[in-house]
């Protein structure tokens, strides 16, 4: 690796879209997690309240984020997460991690996991858990990419 200091060329930085879909106006959780991500060294794009799945995916594509993190407290998670996942896939962004948090029953968490959504964090989860989860996912993906490039030439 290059031994250049801090802002070395070619350095990968985790980009995360923190989004708040739907009509619920409780954005404190989203703001807390956005700040935690920033403090963890991520570049966080925050879209504000009342986003449609289409708006979230448009932002995710244009910003070329690695991760979309949605906060859903309205109970509409079984609609919103699959919809955003489907739109991301449709746009060709199958390698973006869709994760999030909110008040989501364990059965639903499992159902969403089966649909390709990543880990979902419930109330009271330490922000460090989400940071660690995204970091390890990101490292794994980068390793896989490098391996893929090495093999593919």
């Amino acid at each position, binding site marked *: 690796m290059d*031994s250049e200091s801090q802002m070395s060329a070619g350095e990968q*930085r985790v980009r995360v879209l923190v989004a708040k879909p739907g009509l619920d106006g409780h954005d404190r959780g989203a703001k807390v997690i956005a700040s935690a991500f920033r403090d*963890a060294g991520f570049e966080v794009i*925050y879209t*504000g309240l009342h986003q449609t799945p289409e708006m979230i995916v448009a932002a995710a594509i*244009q*910003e*070329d984020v690695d991760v979309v993190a949605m906060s859903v407290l309205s109970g509409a998670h079984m609609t919103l997460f699959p919809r955003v996942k489907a739109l991301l896939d449709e*746009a060709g962004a199958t390698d973006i991690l869709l994760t999030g948090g909110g008040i989501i029953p364990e059965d639903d968490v499992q159902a969403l996991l089966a649909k390709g959504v990543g880990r979902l964090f419930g109330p009271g989860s330490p922000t460090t858990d989400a940071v660690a989860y995204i970091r390890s996912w990101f490292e794994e993906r980068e390793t896989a990419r490098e391996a893929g490039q090495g093999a593919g030439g």
Partner: protein
Amino acid sequence: MVSPVPPLATELPASLRPLVEGIRSGNRLALARAISVVENERPGFQALLHTLLTPGEGHAGPPGSRVGITGPPGAGKSSLVTAMARAHMEAGDQVGVVAVDPTSPYSGGALLGDRIRMNDLATDPRIFIRSMASRGSLGGLATTTTEVMDVMDVAGFPRLLVETVGVGQTELEIAGTADTVVVVLVPESGDGIQAMKAGLMEIADIFVVNKSDRPGADRLVREIRTALHYRAGDARKVRVPAHHGVDLSGGIAQAGGIAQAGGSGPARGEEGKGGDADLSKAPPSWTPPVLQTVAHAGEGVAGLLAAIEDHRVWMLESGELERRRLARTTTRVRDVMDRELKRRVRRLLADSTVAGPALGAIASGGSTPYSVAARLLEGFS
């Protein structure tokens, strides 16, 4: 033995070819990922830029328009950009927006919040919005903002709006990359105007007093006009019309590079050739207009766009546009060379067969860092 230094590659790596094809077929994800390659300066990014910018390969014609929006934090830059973008889209233009926010010097992270104002527009195919973190760059933009604008331009978003980080006095990089610089202030900036005279004041092509429905807006407009008046001095009074706009009384295409940007000092005529004829031949200069807007309500936005268009016409006719673009190109070539030389120096010093003896000589007292550097630099000429 000095290991051979690979030349600056302009040949596109195979892995990046799909991005170029994607951009040319209008794929937004390909555009977004190409921007990331450039922003992160990943291997091959220079070849990617070279390929995209080469005329005849899917990109033709002059570069699009580039308007920079700058000003202190909270002045309403994002709201103004949103209102401007909306107006351009309604006029049928393809709009590219680059919004820069600061990177934390402590964590290296960033919270990019400009999209909060803009994301309502994001699903429209006529616009492409990209946030950039400044990543340690101190000039109000990110290191690669200009390159990112180039990519958006050739990808079919030629009407470019770039929003800087909230600036103070010295973050003036925008002046080197935009055709027109709009400085946005708010009535509350009034007391700060003394402080900005040395910085922002000098790069503005257009002033906007946003949030003009608040008290103090008229006073701020007056203060800015007064300050501009001081700066313009006598040289300007001679041929500048009483208000902003294009002085068509002068010969239009006469400006052989002596037109001055608003801010680079009073316009200097070609003295000594004698008579009134010379005066009329002198290029018209530009006095920055001071406009008022209420961005969130869309008030004054049409006037701002008209002023930007006036400025563009003035730049075309005075030769200022050509001058600025030439200066920009010079900077670009210098930056590419700077970066490449830096890379070569690092590579040379990373070579133990070179660095080992040289550093050893310094340690034993036979050489100094200066004599070693001088010797190593000989190989670079």
